[in-house]
């Protein structure tokens, strides 16, 4: 068998990017980093450069026109990845502005060749490439033959020099008829997607020769550590080792475990649906508290009340003692991928087996508007990512009390979860009372009772059924009249 050439994949040093690229950046590739101004191109280039530049693989960063090099150095220093020790050692900055202003592409190419021959770099960056192209003096017949030739020669040159190359440019869209899109091996497109009042950063690998990349738009953030890409959770990862403990998980509310048929099966996802104030968050807190009591760790993503407050001292204490991890959900314009990443991070850190998302309604509001349209799909991804991790998930969902139809989830996502618990208000004797029922538990017997419950200082207390009432789910139950006694009374009345 003829051995294939092995394409070495470089670790870019940008969290999440290697995964999106399909394992890393192919060595010796000729890449274009494109996007509108402010989308993060120079930052991405610098972050990769500082991660990849070594003595054996030095980097040459050619600045052209646009951001003055001193300013670029000033701003990029603000990121943690910037290491001034490397400058003039494995990283060299060279300015081509003077040659570019002359407008002769041959001169610019000559200058690039000269610098590459002098430094023998393994990484070459040209920032910005678009300004090289724009500044050229067009030939008299107005054709782009010169430009095409320049790009071809540049591409060939970089290949023969075995340098992984990055051209940075402000290109509008990938559909321009520009020779650079054809010559380039990889096209990394950065965007700022603005919808209503929110801005979400997204990147797309439009092209990468030699390996399959993750398709679609991937959100990323720019922070003091640089760029972090939120790659979608890997599907089909082997579930975390489930402890040899019982195959059922206790909920922390005694009668509820009975109603579920002995507790919730481990690894299941349960949806707790009910109107505002019906006690869902209290149930979620009891779930985590019970876990701590059994020696299990938990994670909560709280989109409604922050657990630090005095509303739930038991839960706040668990968070403080480290038994329960809190996923910070106050960052603006969240994406599902980011939340999954944060949750998985906490789950792995604590080896948690219980997860609470309180609530799905709050979660939807916390997402950037651009993601709300795909909420159902994203929720399916979230649930499958969590179940692949082998954790037991409790999600609360606010449900308007509607007495005309029997729905358990406003998103039509009830089918996604393995179990559903519903809480409702009913009116009896001019009082607002609460009932709870287990609607479904996959592959398990469970109670079909609609039981009244109350909430006191100790939490949820499940009481008895209301056998003398009927039509409970209609909201206004009526006292059941004994059919025999009625018949007898009416007979007697005649």
């Amino acid at each position, binding site marked *: 068998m003829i051995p294939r050439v092995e394409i070495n994949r470089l670790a870019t040093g940008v969290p999440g990017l290697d995964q999106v690229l399909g394992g890393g950046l192919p060595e010796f590739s000729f890449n274009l980093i494109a996007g509108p101004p402010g989308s993060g191109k120079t930052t991405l280039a610098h972050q990769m450069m500082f991660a990849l530049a070594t003595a054996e693989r030095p980097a040459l960063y050619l600045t052209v026109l646009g951001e003055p090099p001193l300013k670029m*150095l*000033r701003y990029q220093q603000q990121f943690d990845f910037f290491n001034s020790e490397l400058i003039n050692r494995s990283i060299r*900055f060279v300015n081509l502005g003077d040659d570019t202003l002359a407008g002769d592409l041959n001169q610019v190419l000559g200058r690039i060749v000269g610098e590459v021959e002098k430094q023998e770099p393994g990484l070459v960056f040209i920032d910005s490439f678009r300004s090289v192209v724009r500044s050229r003096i067009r030939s008299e017949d107005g054709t782009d033959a010169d430009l095409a030739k320049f790009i071809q020669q540049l591409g060939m040159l970089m290949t023969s020099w075995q340098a992984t190359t990055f051209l940075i440019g402000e290109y509008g869209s990938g559909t321009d008829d520009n020779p650079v899109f054809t010559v380039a091996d990889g096209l990394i497109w950065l965007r700022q997607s603005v919808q209503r009042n929110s801005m979400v950063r997204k990147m797309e690998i439009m092209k990468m020769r030699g390996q399959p990349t993750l398709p679609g738009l991937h959100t990323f953030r720019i922070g003091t550590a640089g760029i972090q890409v939120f790659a979608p959770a890997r599907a089909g990862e082997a579930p975390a080792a489930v402890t040899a403990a019982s195959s059922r998980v206790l909920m922390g509310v005694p009668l509820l475990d009975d109603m579920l048929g002995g507790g919730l099966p481990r690894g299941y996802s349960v949806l707790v649906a009910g109107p505002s104030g019906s006690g869902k968050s209290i149930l979620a807190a009891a779930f985590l508290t019970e876990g701590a009591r059994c020696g299990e760790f938990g994670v909560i993503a709280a989109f409604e009340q922050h657990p630090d407050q005095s509303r739930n001292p038991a839960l706040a204490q668990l968070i403080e003692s480290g038994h329960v991890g809190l996923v910070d959900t106050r960052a603006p314009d969240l994406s599902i991928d980011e939340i999954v990443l944060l949750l998985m991070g906490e789950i792995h850190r604590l080896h948690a087996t219980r997860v609470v998302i309180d609530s799905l309604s709050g979660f939807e509001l916390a997402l950037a508007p651009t993601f709300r349209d795909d909420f159902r799909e994203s929720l399916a991804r979230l649930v499958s990512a969590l179940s692949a991790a082998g954790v037991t998930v409790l999600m609360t969902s606010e449900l308007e009390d509607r007495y005309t139809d029997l729905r358990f989830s406003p998103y039509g996502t009830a089918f996604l979860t393995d179990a559903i618990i519903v809480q409702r208000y009913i009116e009896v004797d001019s009082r607002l009372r609460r009932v709870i029922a287990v609607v479904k538990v996959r592959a398990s017997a469970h109670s079909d009772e609609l039981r009244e419950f109350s909430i006191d200082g100790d939490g949820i207390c499940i009481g008895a059924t209301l056998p003398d009432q009927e039509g409970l789910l209609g909201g206004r139950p009526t006292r059941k009249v004994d059919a025999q006694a009625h018949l007898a009374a009416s007979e007697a009345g005649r």
Partner: protein
Amino acid sequence: MFNGRLKAGFSKLSCTSQDGTGGVRSGVPRALLIRHHMERHESGRISATLATRVGEDADPTQIADAIISTWDAVNDALSPIIGRGGVAALYNRSLHLTGLDYPWLADVSRGAQTTMDLVGLKAALSRQTSANATAGGTAVLQTFYELLCRLVGPSLTDRLLRSTWAPF
């Protein structure tokens, strides 16, 4: 005399300066304040570098030569990174700021803003006494260094200018 100018500069800077017509006055007071706020810890190194290039009892021409060759070294180190225009802009700004303390330097930078006129500087230095030439020449280099520090920080500035401080 000097402190008096400084005090005047301070008081004018507490709020945007206004002249009688309600416009904002700019220029000298602010530049003065910036000039004197910069750190001076590198003047020792610059003086030492110059001292290695000229002996004691050097005449003004020799001092001028030493200073110009230091500027050549600065240009060699920086212009590949920030372009000839970038170096010239910082050089002319340094001349302008130093010219406030040494009026005979102020004439050198008049006019040219995008090129580095070392010929004019050399001529101006050669016309001074040895002491003045050393003081003025060092001051311009010092200001240049401080400007660069304010833009990209001392760590990076030291890195970029490393080759200029090395003795021949």
